[in-house]
């Protein structure tokens, strides 16, 4: 096998950059630290592309499909005799694909941030955190074992926390970062429990061993059952819980919209293109186990994905903050990917859903990063997040306008842009497996087209808003990434994923299914048309439509009150009904018992201390009485 040892530098370089910028950042010039971070990332982007080329087109994998290559592995911590946590690099189709996605988007965001964050306080801190994030995310995707994945899983969580709370003097940002961390941490608890159950039964963390169909994971599939489901099913459901949290699926999605408090490049990188798809990646990584030993868990994946995509799409239609609309759209698209995995089988054409999911992950990363960066350029120009403050911006921001339009068309699934191809594969996979889910996804496709163009028309067309100062196009550091990503959104659809990234590593035949594609384009066009009617020119129609749905609209506008449920659980249940009583109990029962013992002792001693009054005469009296009595005793009785 070709030597891939150099890939160790792909995660290591950002880490060194993080240490450099984190420790010495305040001594460097702000601009220099930004350039250093970007240069470091550029190097690993080149390395990643080189790796991808070598891996996919090295010509050695033609016959038996793409193999998993362990490029590097070292023991980090020994646990039991069999279990040990390793750090290493595992190259297989999905990890190589993810390397390309992450480094591309991350590089774009780095370049973009040079312009976007210019003059901000903490510029070098921002780049240090970005490097930390890149390190963690790259470490996550190349993980050779599930515990390494968990390690980096936590690290991406904390870099997300740090970046959401980048404006740490802003209370809303602080709240959002805290919320993101705690919600995902709760989901990670499930992940950890899943790992514990899995490793207890299989005695290994290693992905290659775990996903080997003749390995221990599969011999366990029929063993001990608990509450009607096998142990493997339980562990997979728990592990999936981690993915639900990180990928902001229902019901752990609440952190994602709030996470938009972070700087916009961060939203593009972490909360759209890379970190939030970690859940999808996790399921894909464990896919053979899901598919072959825990089909029930896979159904859970499918239904959670489908429900989340519909749920988020409905909410997205009512929101007015552009970043929040995009956040819900992200959630909806990730729901698509989860659904595709959930309906997929293992191997050959059965694995269509798997391939479609990865394909969509890839294209989604491009166009969603583009949408967010475009949104950043708009916010940069208008100084507002709210789309009701905008309108007619196409004159002021021509480049942003064009790239944003491309992105909107892509996400809506208009051929021949990349979104069309990947979404079509997902729909086809759903059609072959579950008609109900297929119907839901059709509906979501229409909704997606509608809310994206609602956003587009309200921002770039619609009423001619009067601005305090004329909006101007962003500097070229910001527009160049936009253009690159726009090109990416257009061309990535032509990558033959069915030959490269498949569930078992072997290529299979896949064709465009016109029976699926034509209706889906029509649904998308219908959504766009509806948005055109409502939002192209200012009119009273949107309010009328909202009035027609009345309660439905209100519920959706308030995000179905899920946040309120969370606040109730944390503020009321945990704080008021668990913690406060425990704290009270500790002070007034446990501690009071100790104090009671002490005060009882003290009381008793007060009672008996009169025996020792300190008056010699009393003592002498007792003494003499005793002496006399002893004398009498000896003289008269003991003779």
């Amino acid at each position: 096998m070709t030597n891939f040892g150099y890939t160790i530098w792909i995660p290591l370089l950002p880490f060194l950059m993080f240490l450099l910028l984190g420790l010495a950042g305040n001594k460097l010039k702000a601009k220099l630290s930004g350039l250093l971070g970007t240069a470091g990332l550029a190097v690993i982007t080149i390395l990643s592309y080189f790796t991808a080329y070598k891996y996919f087109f090295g010509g050695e994998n033609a016959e038996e499909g793409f193999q998993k290559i362990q490029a590097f592995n070292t023991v980090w911590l020994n646990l039991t005799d069999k279990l040990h946590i390793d750090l290493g690099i595992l190259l297989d189709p999905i990890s190589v694909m993810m390397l390309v996605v992450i480094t591309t988007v991350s590089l774009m965001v780095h370049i973009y941030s040079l312009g976007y964050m210019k003059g901000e306080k903490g510029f070098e801190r921002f780049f240090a955190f970005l490097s930390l994030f890149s390190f963690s995310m790259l470490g996550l995707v190349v993980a050779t074992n599930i515990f390494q994945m968990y390690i980096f899983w936590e690290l991406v969580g904390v870099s997300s926390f740090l970046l959401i709370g980048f404006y740490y003097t802003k209370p809303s940002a602080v709240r959002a970062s805290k919320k993101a961390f705690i919600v995902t941490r709760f989901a990670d608890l499930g992940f950890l429990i899943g790992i514990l159950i899995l490793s207890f039964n299989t005695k290994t963390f290693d992905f290659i061993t775990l996903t080997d169909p003749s390995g221990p994971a599969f011999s366990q599939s029929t063993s001990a059952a608990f509450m009607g489901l096998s142990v493997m099913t339980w562990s997979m459901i728990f592990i999936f819980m981690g993915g639900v949290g990180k990928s902001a699926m229902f019901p752990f999605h609440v952190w994602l919209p709030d996470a938009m408090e972070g700087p916009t490049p961060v939203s593009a990188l972490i909360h759209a293109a890379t970190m939030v798809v970690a859940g999808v990646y996790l399921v894909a990584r464990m896919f053979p186990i899901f598919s072959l030993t825990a089909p029930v868990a896979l159904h859970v994946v499918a239904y959670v994905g489908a429900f989340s995509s519909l749920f988020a799409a409905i909410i997205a239609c009512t929101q007015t903050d552009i970043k929040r609309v995009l956040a819900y759209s992200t959630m909806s698209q990730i729901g698509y990917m989860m659904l595709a995995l959930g309906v997929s089988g293992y191997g050959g054409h059965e694995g269509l859903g798997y391939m479609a999911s990865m394909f969509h992950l890839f294209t989604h990363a491009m166009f969603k990063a583009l949408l967010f960066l475009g949104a950043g350029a708009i916010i940069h120009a208008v100084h507002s997040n709210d789309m009701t403050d905008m309108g007619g911006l196409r004159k002021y921001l021509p480049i942003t306008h064009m790239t944003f339009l491309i992105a909107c068309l892509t996400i809506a699934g208009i051929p021949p842009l990349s979104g069309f191809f990947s979404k079509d594969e997902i729909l086809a996979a759903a059609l072959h497996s579950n008609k109900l889910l297929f119907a839901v996804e059709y509906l979501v496709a229409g909704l997606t087209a509608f809310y994206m163009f609602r956003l587009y028309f309200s921002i770039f067309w619609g009423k001619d808003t009067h601005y305090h100062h004329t909006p101007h196009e962003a500097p070229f550091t910001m527009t160049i990434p936009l253009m690159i990503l726009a090109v990416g959104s257009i061309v990535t659809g032509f990558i033959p994923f069915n030959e490269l990234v498949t569930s078992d590593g072997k290529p299979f035949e896949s064709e465009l299914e016109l029976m699926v594609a034509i209706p889906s384009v029509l649904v998308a066009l219908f959504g766009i048309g509806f948005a055109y009617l409502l939002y192209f020119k200012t009119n009273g129609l949107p309010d009328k439509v909202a009035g027609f749905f009345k309660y439905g609209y209100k519920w959706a506008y308030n995000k179905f009150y899920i946040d309120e449920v969370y606040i109730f659980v944390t503020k009321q249940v945990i704080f008021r009904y668990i913690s406060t009583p425990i704290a009270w109990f500790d002070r007034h029962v446990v501690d009071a018992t100790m104090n009671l013992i002490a005060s009882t002792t003290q009381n008793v001693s007060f009672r008996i201390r009169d025996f020792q009054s300190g008056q010699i005469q009393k003592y002498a009296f007792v003494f003499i009485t005793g002496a006399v009595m002893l004398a009498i005793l000896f003289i008269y009785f003991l003779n």
Partner: protein
Amino acid sequence: MDILSLFVVIPVLTITAILFLKDMKQVRVVSAIGMGVQLVLAAVLIYMYLTARHSGNTDEMLFVKDYIWYKSLNIHYAIGVDGISVAMIGLTSIVVIAGIFASWEVEYLRREFFISLILLATGVFGFFISIDLFTMFLFYELAVIPMYLLIGIWGTGPKEYSAMKLTLMLMGGSALLLLGLLGIYFNSAPGGGQLTFNILEISKITIPIAAQRIFFPLTFVGFGVLGALFPFHTWSPDGHASAPTAVSMLHAGVLMKLGGYGAFRVAIFLMPEAAKELSWIFIILTATSVVYGAFGAIVQKDLKYINAYSSVSHCGLVLFAILMMNKTAMNGAVLQMISHGLMTALFFALIGMIYGRTHTRLISEMGGLMKVIPFLSVCYVIAGLASLGLPGLSGFVAEMTIFVGAFQHPEPFYRGVTILAVSSIVITAVYILRVVAILLLGPTTNDHFTHLPDAKWYEKISVVTLIGAVAAIGLAPLWLSNMIGISLQPIVTKILAITPF
């Protein structure tokens, strides 16, 4: 002079030197030098230990020395170390030096303060090197007593009350412990012959099970009081809240570890049969500690109280893991002792420094300190992240080793309790982030706090030493984990002999 005795001799020499100093300013310098030498010595010891092990020395204890000092009861000054004690000695010397630098500015009765502090350290070092139960107990008491003076004289708030409570509860624990130790002593020769206090010798025989049933709980609870075992933990919040900075650091960082180490070295090692039999009771108690401490910390208002409850939770995890009685969990317990020692010392150091500037410890009165004192705030965030188990810092390594180890227990009951204990990681995140958000982030609320000075050089030394250690263990845990693991082997073998897993 053997290297181990130096650990007791150097602090005593330092104390003597301090006694004869004229200039008060020199007191702290001399203390720092003395403890610095101690730190170097600890590094040398670790090196010597690893070299000896590397060259194939498989003795249970290394550098063993034995002098009899009370013949009629067969009490020896017997010393020796294995990987666990070496690790604990390393921890102690780091925390002590950090504590010395953290109390650089103590004005009131400076000489006496440093003497008490170093006396406490002497006791701790002596405890870790002893392998004779009586000598061990002697050093244990030596470490506990100066605590009363340190809190009662240099403390804040209701210091006499807290000091009294702490000392009395610990003394109560000692009383149980002494009973337990004597019980072991009188059962140390079941077949007749010389009674002994020597741990190595006792470990070779089996104490009669009837005696174990009585003396295991006594010993375990006796050490457990110091290890903040629920419900004997209530000295901890009051004691920590009233103690001066360095004392909190030493107490939570090192002294509480005496409890865990003792419970492990004496209670479990010498009486594994009873431990096996009774572990379910203590597993419930310790799991309660873990969750209860974490929930208790959520609603506290005083920084030190939060940390004290968090210590209850983390130290509960130590005892919890020890009771799982397998190699991985025990390894995790030792790692957790070290990790918690370092990071809680770091926490208390930072809290002390923040208190020294703001003159309040109530989180509601502070806010937005990140902008004012960035160095201390960033360090506080790092300590917080270590505490909530972020990979790359020591807490993660320890907790994961414990969880994986505990989950290997063959009985489902224990695995279920483990899942309960695992859930504490979420609660920990809640209270840590709550404090960080209120205390450090957001706008600066109080106008008095806008011009606070950031850390001075000695404070930086103190904090950076601890963070360095926390990060070093977190990034490269393998050597430490292996060093502990090898030393656990005899204990595990002994346990396996009675309960084949």
